[in-house]
């Protein structure tokens, strides 16, 4: 089952990963802060729609996303 893992401590909350998912809004901004004071993004895929295309990861300037398939 394709999935992504977001390293929330690496994430700077820029949101670039949230706009490129071909499956809609699998990557969303969270409301929590990380220890650096950023709001990281989160992976929300209850329906297992992720295809592991890595668009989100490719877009991340901080290489905070790992993609598994």
């Amino acid at each position, binding site marked *: 089952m394709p999935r992504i893992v977001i390293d929330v401590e690496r994430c700077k909350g820029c*949101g670039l990963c949230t706009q490129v998912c071909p499956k809609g809004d699998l990557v969303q901004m969270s409301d929590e802060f990380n220890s650096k004071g950023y709001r990281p993004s989160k992976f929300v895929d209850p329906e297992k729609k992720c295809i592991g295309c890595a668009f989100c990861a490719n877009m991340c300037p901080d290489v905070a996303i790992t993609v*598994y398939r």
Partner: protein
Amino acid sequence: MSEAKEEKIVFQRPKALCDVVTHYCPGCLHGVVHRVIAEVIDDLGIQEITVGIAPVGCSVLAYNYIATDFAEAAHGRALAMATGMKRVHPELVVFTYQGDGDLAAIGTNELIHAATRGENITTIFINNAIYGMTGGQMAPTTLPGQVTTSTPTGRDTKLAGFPIRVCELVSTLEGSAYIVRRSAYNPSEIRKLKAAIKTAFQVQMAGLGYSLVEVVSNCPTNWGMTPLESLKWLQENMLAYYPLGDYKVKDSVKELMAKK
């Protein structure tokens, strides 16, 4: 369980990218370009023969992120430094990573002459239309009308002149072999960017002359935008002035690409 066993990592940090947090602002594409360069270095297996040269600009600390031998140049002089290195060690892959201020303002002379000499060097040129590092002054590539801290009422071409188009300029020089403009505002552009950087390195390794990949980039911080707004602004404003595409692909490069 059987499924978990087969799970493979399909995207992760490239080997040639140091496992550290960068100092870049959230959403700054410097980070993406760094990663893409590292991927190319991994793909070509050249980590041990590559020397990078960092500019003065936001990417001054690039040497902390890309895991090859690295030097930090004086502002604008990366290509002179690279020339000195490459002439002594033609077997190395030498690349410079430079911003618009570094490459196209103070470093224009070094650019023009490294290109016309046909140095076998690759430049990754980050055009974000602003001086990021020093806090958002006009760059040579700042668009007409664009507000910066040194063009507070917008760049007035009467007083501050016109933006420089680096690819168009450098293409006129015979020593330049592969001069292209890419961007990184979405995954498909990033894919094209990666292909271009790979070609540029291959051009260098084949000794075909000077190669330059311009990346139309962003600076959310000094543009005064959110990262997502900045990508929109990039597409709506920068691309018209800086059209993506191939500006010079020497025949020898075409042959090389056909072979690979």
